[in-house]
């Protein structure tokens, strides 16, 4: 396990989850693995935050859950983006970009 894990800024978890689901529906474990991988092991989400977040998103109608079969033939709950979720993802991404650009500008400015 890498020691360079950092805490996620408030509110970014939703964005990350939505992003990981953009390509295809995944189950909870796969989501956390995927985040871990593509962030080069920097981001590791506590399960205790992941599942409540998933259900919060589901309640808002951005993702939809359905039972399916995993690679190793086990029953697993898959989460997929809804149409509303996709729109939301776009908004969140552009908001994030704005924020990071702004933050970067401030940091570089000195």
């Amino acid at each position, binding site marked *: 396990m890498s020691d360079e894990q950092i805490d996620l800024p408030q509110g970014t978890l939703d964005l990350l989850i939505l992003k990981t689901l953009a390509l295809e529906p995944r189950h909870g474990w796969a989501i956390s693995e995927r985040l871990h991988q593509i962030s080069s092991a920097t981001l590791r989400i506590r399960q205790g935050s992941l599942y409540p*977040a998933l259900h919060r998103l589901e309640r808002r109608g951005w993702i939809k859950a359905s039972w399916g079969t995993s690679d190793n033939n086990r029953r697993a709950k898959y989460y997929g983006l809804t149409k509303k979720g996709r729109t939301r993802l776009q908004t969140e991404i552009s908001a994030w970009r704005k924020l990071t650009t702004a933050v970067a500008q401030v940091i570089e400015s000195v």
Partner: protein
Amino acid sequence: MLSDLLHRLRNLFHRDAVERELDEEMRFHLEQQVDAYMREGLDRHQAVRRARLEFGGLEQIKDEHRDARGIGVIAHLGRDLRHGLRQFRRSPAFTALAVLCLGLAIGVNTSIFGVLNSVLFRPMPVQQPERLIVVSRNDTATFSYPTYRDFRDRNHTLVGLAASLPSESDLDIDGNSTFVAAEAVSGNYSRVIGVQTMLGRWFSSDTEPAAVISYAVWQRHFNLDTDVLGRTIRSESQSYSIAGVAPREFSGIFAPLRTDIWVPIGTRPTLVALRENRTARSFMLFGRLTDAATATQASSELNAIEAPLATAGTSPSEAVAPIVADEVRGIANVANRRRAQVAATFLTVVVGLVLLIACVNVGNLLLVRGAVRQREFALRRALGASRHRVLQQLLAESLLLAIGGGICGLVLARWTNALLERSLPLVQGIFPQQLKFDLDWRVITFTAVVSLLTTVLCGLLPAWRASRTDGLVAFKGEILVGTPRRRPLGLIAQVVMSFVLLLVAGTFVQTLVRMQTADPGFAVNGRLYAYSFISTPGIASAATRQIYSRALDELKALPGIRNATLSYSLPLMPTGSDCVARTSGPRIPTTTGSVDPEYFQTMKIDVVAGRTFTASDTPGNGAVVIVNERLANGLWPNGSPIGQRVMIGCHDATAATVIGIARNSSIRSLGETPQPHLYFPFAQHFSGGLTAILVETSTPPGSLVEPVRRTLLALGQGVRVYTVQPLSEYVDQSYSAIRWQTSVLTTFGLLALVLAAIGLYGVITYRVALRTREIGVRMALGASRRNVFREVVGQGLSIALIGVAIGEVLTIMVGRLLGALDPDIQPPGIIVLTVTGLIWIVVSILATYVPAARASGVNPLIALRYE
């Protein structure tokens, strides 16, 4: 939004399924992680251990999760309620006390709302009551018959318009006469009102000699015998054949009086002239709206019909107020409703205060419990419950109490309603009254709302305080409630409210006592009266007077009778009212009565100036009147009225000569300030109808009741005799309304007193418990038991004194309001103020005695060992 709701609902209703799925999902995750670690080379045992560690508390996740799913509030409520029930089972005394306090208060509120409901809100027990309207103008609900005909024939918004003339009348069954409230009604009455019969049918023409009797008459006089149809009864000298029996719940339009007989309007000869008179407004009008029309439309249509007629006929001052068609709710007659509404609203305020007192009580009890349970809350907070959760749990507990109180209250209200219904017929002596105070859906809803309100009212503050518990501090073994305020506002408010209620009750008691001890200004003892009526059809008034003078002669011949006389009405129940004025001068409204010459002597009302009536004051001679002192003063403040002419009448005045001044006596009620009154000679001013025969006896009047009745009945000639009783009983009945109100208010006042005393006791006891150690220290340092005892009692006493002082000031304002309720009620006098104050002080000492004794019994050694 909708998806959110559906989601929550699914979560709520499929809790088990959802929990199972959650379980499965978590397990899947864990196993995936274990597989992953095993692929990295760990053995299974290590992999499981590591995955578990990383995963964190499984239950904790599931819980956070449930909150995220948003089922918290509702699912928790169920859990909180169950938890609350367990809590209450553990402290049955507290629970019983709290539920009983709330139950009593909610019970009386439910009961009084039941009264308010039957007075103001409940529709009539008829078909489609929401389409039934009553017509009124300017707070009077009566119209002339020609107006009725216009409205009936020209409107388009009503299916039908019915007229009813409510009146006191007689009902004669096999020679037995009774007084009843009767309605002479148009033939379409049953169709318009929407009332069926229980047995038989309603008459449907204006002239059919048929009558419908009330259920009560059927029960009392005919033993519920179904053969009653077709039997002949008599009323106001007419014979009727019984066509039907009205449904039990239908008591007519005369509420709170119960109508006992309905007859067609055309069968009353006395009404023939009345029905052509446009200025005699005696008929109540009821309409049934067509499906398309509203009450507002009906109102404007009736106004439009009336407008041209009003300008043509009546004086302009009478036609100004618009005509209003209202849905019939509660008491149909606007004037009656107004009167009942004032009384019912007043009672509502009174019981509202009782409820507030009970709420403060239970609130105080909950505060005490909250302080005692601080450790429990601290533990919960430490284990991760949010402040919000603790608050929610406590509110759920008070909800439970309120539900218990509500149920208890409904049970109680059933009982008190029956009591109120039973005591009501006694309120107005002669005529039977009937109001049903059912627990219908309105009342039940009201109780539910009140119970919920109670939850918030008595639960919110204690819950708020308790939820503030700081997890760490409370654990140090210290009960931290903050030093309680020396004079808690809640308690003082309670004392004030209960004291004001007690004073109100005291004010009524004072009025009652004043009435009982007042000098009525006329003789009561050794007097007997008999109401009689001559029912010979078409008899001339001269013949009537002849029958009566024979009656008086025969009565005077009876042993034990000193004197006998006639009066159109009994004192305290003036039937006439009129205006009287000097030939030039302002008009003074006055009550009137017609009396026989010997009335003044028989009733011991002295004629202080001029002369009394004589046998020569007959219709042929000039009109003469006697005025009482109050009226004489009003008309001629500085001069003798004897021999002066007065104009009598509010509209078309006729002249008369004043021949005498009679001493003031009670006219409307006992103990009143003198009222203007005018006496006509019976011979000049009698047009038939119910007449009172007054008798002075030399033996106890009770023993002469039967001889008098027999003598009068023996006259024959259609003489009917109703009530015969000693005048003292009649006078007693005259203030039965006040007596009823007094007993109801005294009950509520005492209830409030007991509740507030319980509150005082509870809080003082609690404070003593909190201060046990302090008291121990002080006693160890030399304070005597007496000092401690005095201090505790002093605490309760100071609260009571402050409350009483504020209450006395408030009552000066309340006293004025009471005057508006009933003119007989006067503000509380010094005796009432002192006695009620003393009662409260004694009660406060009693309520603090037990805790004070406990405090002074503290053993310093034991108290200090707590350290």
